[in-house]
């Protein structure tokens, strides 16, 4: 039997827990992911694989990027540096691979790069704010001056879009392009959608270099942009969308 004292105690506790409902509601609301309405500018890339795969072994976009940004050529897969590179379908789209895919999609390496996520996990883990999501256009930026080389961002990125300089990159550059700094041993680097070219009114160098016009770049918040038109006219997929990162590189298959 419950005595009077105990009854009062439990009644009081239940009352308290009722009072905490509004608080719990607030907390759970804060956990909800933000919708992807693109109220602000969000730059994105659409890769048309039908066009891209027409030319076998074409690497024009990759070469253009490597030259523009002084990216060293290191063969060893453990310490090579890559901003835009090729990956086989089953590695790029693990969760969408099956054995009856068309031969060309299944076996041709396709271009991948930083996805400039809506909700970038790399940004969340960076202890020095050396990487951040730029408010005005959604680019996931890098500040190489602040990078301390802790590589948390590399662990956080589900796409392998970040490379660490294990060696002095200048030793592996045939030519140094003087307009863009190299990086040093001990910093992490990745694609920035060519922010330095955008601020001079140019397109990213990979987009400019593609003779097949397989790469389209633009603003998703603009209804009339080329990227929006492509996305509304063709079926597109993204890499690992189920992780909730909101990747902004779309593929027409």
């Amino acid at each position, binding site marked *: 039997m419950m005595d009077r004292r105990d009854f009062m105690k439990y009644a009081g506790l239940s009352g308290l827990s009722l009072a905490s409902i509004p608080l719990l509601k607030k907390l759970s609301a804060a956990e909800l992911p933000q919708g992807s309405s693109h109220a602000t500018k969000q730059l994105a890339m659409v890769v048309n694989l039908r066009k891209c795969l027409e030319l076998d072994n074409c690497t024009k976009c990759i070469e253009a990027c490597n030259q523009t940004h002084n990216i060293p050529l290191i063969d060893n897969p453990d310490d090579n540096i890559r901003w835009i590179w090729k990956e086989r379908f089953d590695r790029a789209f693990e969760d969408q691979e099956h054995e009856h895919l068309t031969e060309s999609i299944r076996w041709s390496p396709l271009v991948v790069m930083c996805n400039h996520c809506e909700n970038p996990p790399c940004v969340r883990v960076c202890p020095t704010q050396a990487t951040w999501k730029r408010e005005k256009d959604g680019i996931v*930026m890098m500040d*190489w001056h602040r990078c301390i080389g802790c590589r948390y961002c590399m662990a956080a990125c589900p796409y392998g879009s970040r490379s660490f300089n294990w060696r002095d990159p200048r*030793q592996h*550059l045939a030519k140094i*392009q*003087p*307009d863009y*700094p*190299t990086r040093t041993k001990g910093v992490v680097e990745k694609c920035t959608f060519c*922010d330095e070219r955008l601020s001079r009114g140019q397109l990213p160098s990979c987009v400019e270099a593609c003779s097949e016009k397989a790469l389209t770049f633009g603003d998703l918040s603009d209804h009339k942009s080329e990227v929006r038109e492509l996305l509304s006219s063709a079926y597109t997929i993204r890499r690992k969308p189920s992780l909730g990162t909101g990747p902004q590189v779309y593929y027409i298959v």
Partner: protein
Amino acid sequence: MPRDFNRIVLGLAVFLALVLTPVWTNLFRSVPPLQDPEIATRNIPGKDKCVLPSVEMKVTHMNLLNQWRDSVVRNDQRDYATADGRHFDMSLSRTCMNCHTDKAKFCDRCHNALAVNPYCWDCHVEPLVQPASMGTEVR
């Protein structure tokens, strides 16, 4: 006279000589005279004035560079307007080094004398003294 006087004096002399090594080695070293940094563009119209007055540059160029760096990288602002209405593209390699083309005879002369060693050049590409066409060969 205390016992072992000579030995004590000898010991003291050796001790002093050793302790004062930095002093006497420097006394006899010929130090090259401090060279002024070379201002290559003093007489080229349009390049005869620095971004800020020279007196200010001497003291604050490192702060100006930090400000430029943050402005470009973090705020995407690349245009710098001076008080007297000139405009510069905020860039270490493309702007500072476009006038001060010879890093060794300008930046380094000062920095070496003062034992300052900015690490900027680990990444930023220093200009070749002879203007190159496009790329710079690796040294």
